[in-house]
C-alpha cells in the first residue's frame, strides 16, 4: 500500500466505539445503495410487488436494529457530532422505507415520491459522508477486490512489458 505518515493510536474508548459502530456504518451504507436500487427499479416501472417487496421488509428490519444500536451506543466525546450524523442517516433511510412501502407508490397515485425519496437518500448519504472515519473503518467506498483496483506492487518489483 502507499506509504503514509505515523498512525495516531486510538483510545480504548474510541476503539470500542469503532468496533461496535463500524457494522452499523456499513449497514447504513449498504441500505443507501439498496434503497437507491429499489427506487430506480420502482421508477423504471418494474413489476415488483411494491409495497410488499421482500427487500423493503428486510431493509426495515435492518434499520430498526441499526437505530437501536445507535441509540444504545456509548459515544466518546470526540465522536458526538459524527454519531449524530449516523442517527440522522438512519432516520432518513427509515423514512425512505416507509415511503416506498406506501401503496400509493405502487398504484402510481403519488407522483411526488421520486423527488422526495431522492432527496432523503441524498441526505442520508451525505450524513454518512460526514460520519466517515477511515481510522474507525467508516469508509464510504469499499474498493477492495474491485475489478480495476489493487494494491500496487512492492517497491523494486519488476514490471514485465505490457
Amino acid at each position, binding site marked *: 500500500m*502507499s506509504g503514509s505518515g505515523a498512525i495516531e493510536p486510538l483510545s480504548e474508548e474510541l476503539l470500542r466505539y469503532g468496533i461496535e459502530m463500524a457494522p452499523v456504518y*456499513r449497514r447504513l451504507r*449498504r441500505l443507501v445503495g439498496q434503497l*437507491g436500487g429499489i427506487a*430506480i427499479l420502482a421508477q423504471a416501472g418494474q413489476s415488483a410487488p411494491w409495497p410488499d417487496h421482500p427487500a423493503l421488509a428486510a431493509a426495515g428490519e435492518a434499520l430498526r436494529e441499526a437505530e437501536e444500536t445507535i441509540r444504545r451506543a456509548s459515544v466518546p466525546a470526540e465522536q458526538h457530532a459524527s454519531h449524530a450524523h449516523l442517527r440522522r442517516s438512519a432516520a432518513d433511510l427509515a423514512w425512505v422505507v416507509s415511503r416506498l412501502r406506501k401503496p400509493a407508490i405502487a398504484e402510481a397515485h403519488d407522483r411526488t415520491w421520486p423527488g422526495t425519496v431522492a432527496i432523503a437518500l441524498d441526505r442520508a448519504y451525505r450524513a454518512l459522508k460526514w460520519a466517515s472515519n477511515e481510522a474507525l473503518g467508516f469508509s464510504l467506498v469499499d474498493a477492495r477486490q474491485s*475489478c480495476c*483496483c489493487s494494491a500496487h506492487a512492492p517497491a523494486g518489483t519488476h*514490471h514485465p512489458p505490457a
Partner: protein
Amino acid sequence: MADYSIWVLEYARVPNYHLSGIIYGAHNQGYRKLPYCYALIKGNGHVAMVDVGYNHREYGEVLAKRFNVEGWQSPRHVLGKCGVRPEDVDTVFVTHSHFDHFGNVEDFPNAKFYIQEREISKFVWAMSLPERMHWMMTAVDPGDILRAVNLAKEGRLVCVEGDLPDVLPGVDLHAAYDTHTFGSMYVTVRNDGKARSEDVWVLAGDLVYVYENLEGDGSAVDVDKLYIPVGLAVGSQANLVLTTEQIMKQVGYDKKRVIPVHEERLKDEFPSSIDAKGLRLTEICLGKDQVSSVAA
C-alpha cells in the same frame, strides 16, 4: 464509409496491477499497467460513450492514496481531444455498475443512460444478504447508485431487459448475465449499418480486459490457444468463457475487432497518441467526414 468513429480514451491508470486480476489463474506472475478508459462513439448524429469512469471528486483521493490510481483527468479534458464536450454526449451505455464505470454520471447532463435492469435488481438482492456474503457487492459505490436515482427521476435512465438491437442505428446492446457482474452487458457497433454486418466492433467493458483473455496460452491443457477469463467474476468464469465465444462470433473470430478498453497494447494495433499528461487516445475507426484526432 463507416457510420461511426470510435475512440478509446485513457483517463487514469494503475501502473502495477496484479496479473491474476487480469487473467484468471495468473498468480505470482507479476504486474502490468492497467489503463482506465472509456469509449467514445460518434456518428449518425449521436455522441455516445461506453461507461463514464469514476467520480474523482468523491473518492479520487482515496483511490490515489490506497490503490495507486494515478493521472486522473476530467472528461472535459479527455473528450476534448476528440473535439467533444461532456454536455455533447447524448447517450451512455453502462456495461456494469462498478464504481470505475458508473461514477461521473453528473458530468454528462444531457445524456440518457442505459444499464441492464438485472444489474440493479441483483444488486438490490445482494444487499439484502447477510454481510458475510457481501463479497458479491464490492466495488459498487452507493453514491453512484444514488446518482442513478437522480437520473431515473429526470427520466434519463433506461433499465434494459436483455439484448437491445439498434439502441442507436447500428448499435446493439448484448446482455452478459452472471459473468463479471450479475447484469453486465457489451456493446456492438455494426459500422456498415447492415443487419448481417461485415464491419462489427465490440466494446467489451470488463468482459475482456486484455488480448490474452481472447487468445491465451493453452499449453496446460494441450491446446494452442484458448479463452482465459478475467480474474473477477461475480457470476462465473464459465459464463465469461461462453460470453467470449458469443463476442468472437459477432466479429467472425477476428479478435482485433474486440476492443478491451483496459488493454495497453491497443496502441500497437490502432493509431494512438499520448498527451502531455501521459494519457493515451486510441482511434479505432473513423466515420464519414470525421477528421482524425490522433496527432500525426
